[in-house]
């Protein structure tokens, strides 16, 4: 299926649409659960919780003066200039969609464009009534986009790049959230709230009769092979996207850097003793974040930026 290939620039745009839309979704889910925690927990330390959240989302707050919930929301949710915020992620997805507008379906384009046009209005409402309507809107729109991606785009290389981006982002975000839970548990939502934020509550409950303890939740979110937001599920999906994009021979394993990194992470998770998960979690999460970085770089070098150095020779003689 990949005989044809596709424009490198276009592939990069699609990959980043996948990443940014997923980022908006995951961030909305996370912020929602943290805000709940802050509202419901009477002993909550607002400043510390905000710092913890900013730190796991890769935007550490360095200043000494205390940070309020409103400040935190400004940075993580509304700040268009910040590519890690929700509004910023949408803006990033929109810019990439503009560049690939001839490729994506017009329904995807309209959905994304409409969302972007609507966000400022949602923001002013949210500033009055609290962020939950905004966050809900974001979750709905990202779900709509994901649905349109799957239903209106041919499942060709372009779709594979988009899904690849979505998957890598999802692994990265899940790892970050779990880290927040592990490293600064007192500020993070409890395990069940955490499941709820991932939309995983019912699936988790049905999947196990065991005690609903930290280890079983972490096991579910990392090792479950059927739940689409689990790390292992995403690793498998990412690998199959890469395989579709560039099928390797059946007999010798791929020399592809990205697929090798994914395979290493998978190998580690595939045969893990789940009862030991919690103890190994910090190190495991670090490994997952590194894997995401490695895969991202490998894909970028291999598919998006494979320009060779400019060669100076005489311009084609006639």
């Amino acid at each position: 299926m990949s005989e044809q290939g596709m424009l490198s620039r276009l592939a990069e745009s699609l990959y980043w649409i996948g990443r940014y839309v997923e980022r908006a979704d995951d961030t909305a889910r996370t912020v929602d659960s943290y805000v709940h925690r802050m509202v419901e927990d009477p002993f909550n330390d607002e400043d510390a919780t905000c710092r913890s959240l900013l730190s796991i989302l890769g935007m550490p707050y360095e200043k000494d003066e205390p940070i309020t919930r409103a400040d935190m929301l400004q940075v993580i949710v509304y700040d268009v200039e910040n590519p890690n915020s929700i509004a910023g992620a949408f803006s990033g997805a929109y810019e990439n969609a503009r560049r690939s507008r001839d490729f994506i379906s017009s329904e995807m384009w309209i959905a994304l464009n409409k969302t972007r046009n609507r966000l400022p209005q949602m923001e002013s409402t949210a500033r009055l009534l609290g962020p939950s309507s905004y966050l809900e809107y974001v979750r709905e729109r990202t779900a709509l986009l994901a649905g349109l991606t799957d239903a209106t785009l041919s499942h060709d290389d372009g779709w594979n790049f988009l899904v690849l981006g979505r998957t890598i982002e999802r692994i990265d975000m899940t790892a970050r959230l779990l880290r927040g839970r592990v490293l600064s548990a007192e500020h993070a939502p409890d395990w069940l709230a955490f499941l709820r934020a991932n939309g995983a509550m019912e699936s988790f409950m049905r999947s196990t009769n065991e005690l609903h303890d930290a280890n079983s939740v972490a096991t579910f979110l990392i090792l479950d092979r059927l739940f689409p937001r689990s790390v292992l599920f995403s690793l498998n999906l990412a690998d199959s996207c890469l395989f579709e994009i560039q099928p390797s021979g059946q007999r010798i394993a791929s020399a592809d850097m990205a697929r090798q990194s994914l395979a290493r992470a998978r190998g580690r998770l595939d045969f893990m003793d789940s009862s030991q998960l919690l103890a190994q979690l910090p190190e495991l999460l670090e490994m997952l974040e590194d894997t995401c970085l490695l895969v991202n770089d490998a894909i970028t070098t291999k598919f998006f930026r494979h320009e060779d150095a400019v060669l100076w020779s005489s311009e084609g003689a006639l």
Partner: protein
Amino acid sequence: MCSVALMGMIFEDDSSGAWNEMFEAPGKPRPIYERLFAEIDRFDPAELLQRSDQLSHTFLDRGVTFAHSGEERPFPLDLMPRLLGAIEWDLLERGISQRVRALEAFLGDVYGAGQVFEDGVIPKSVVTTSSHFCRAAHSIEPPNGVRITVAGIDLVRDEIGKFRILEDNVRIPSGVSYVIENRRAMTQTFSALFSNHRVHPVDSYPARLLAALRLAAPYGIGDPVVVVLSPGVYNAAYFEHVLLARMMGIELVEGRDLVCRSNHVFMRMTNGERPVHVIYRRVDDDWLDPLQFRPDSVIGVAGLVNAARAGNVALANALGNGVADDKLVYTYVPDFIRFYLGEEPLIENVETFRLEDPDVLGEVLQSLDAYVLKPVDGSGGKGIVIGPQADEQTLTSVRDAIIMSPRNWIAQRPVALSTHPTLVDEQVSPRHVDLRPFAVSGGQGVWVLPGGLTRVALGAGELVVNSSRGGGSKDTWVLNDQLVAPRGPATDVGQPPRNAGVIPRQNDEYTDQEAEQ
């Protein structure tokens, strides 16, 4: 000053002497507008405004925009369509085709034998001093002989209702995407109006363009790879580039996606490089190839011109076409039609004066405020001075500019562009309009898209309609018949379609019972 009531609103007609497209006398629509007038007159004004609002929302959501002064804004579509009758359109179609054929012959001559100079039709100096004359285009012979794959010819209607050519655009004319999008929006918003009129469709344009581009392929390439080359998302017409690429089903590329190697052009793909044979380029000559033109261009492709010269890639439109857009050359086009085609021009130019002649120059300078003054290489309405509307200071500076270089200016008799009722600020008012039909050619005759883009100047009395000056547009309907014939059966199917089977539903007796209780 006379006024008529339309949709309960007072429709002020100005007394500028301009031709009114819709009304021949106050309250009396022209024959082709009668049905439309009757339909629209029935609308409740509030409903009309609501529809207008809906229309602009649709455009915003679809991202149908034009970058104006660095800002993305929707290209305003007025909901009152502009109508052209069948007989009138027939003349326009033939006139535009004739003009494009003459310009094509002229360009081939300029960058080839130069017969037109030898026979004294136009002085060689006029061509070589044109800022768009391109020496690099010499001896680049398009395989199908077509330099003007796409042309946009601007027309205006004068005071007595006669169409005249205002300018030729045979470089990279834009606007056709709005024709397509306008029609789509109008059929959605006003489907009722369409059922009472037989309107020529416009959606075959992308297919026509693709066919023409494929015909431009280098020799020996049976299944050419055709791409659209865009300067990128910051270009005012980016939306159009996307739309055309999508509707033609071909790649939209930017300069950085292409690379030239030993006079062949390739695009960078995820799995290596793929050869490119025909480039529908929407990048100006100046920026196309940093090795040939502006070395600071980052939107071009180094080596493209040599690849074209080697015959390995075709550029559409061709290099150097700008010389035909030069407004001084424009004054010679009627002569080209006689010289190359042996025909009389079907559509006349606007009366224009060449300022290189000292006598003419003297006369024009004496009464500058009686002319429209245009720089010969301007586009998008830039630099135009409308004498009767200009203040003293503008006139003085344009006078200085003209005296400095009379070659670079022309003077035209001011034409009161025709007006058309237009919805502005919740009022229906007359606004000046022009018409830009688009012509496509692949070497097997010139095809003219029925209608074209009607641009409307949204400011009262404003005469410059260019979208880059914040103008709007109208859907343009070429009617198939002067009068609407009764319609036959919608489709000519032999027998009525078999009824489809029943859609299965879930067996839900239980819930049905529940509902009944």
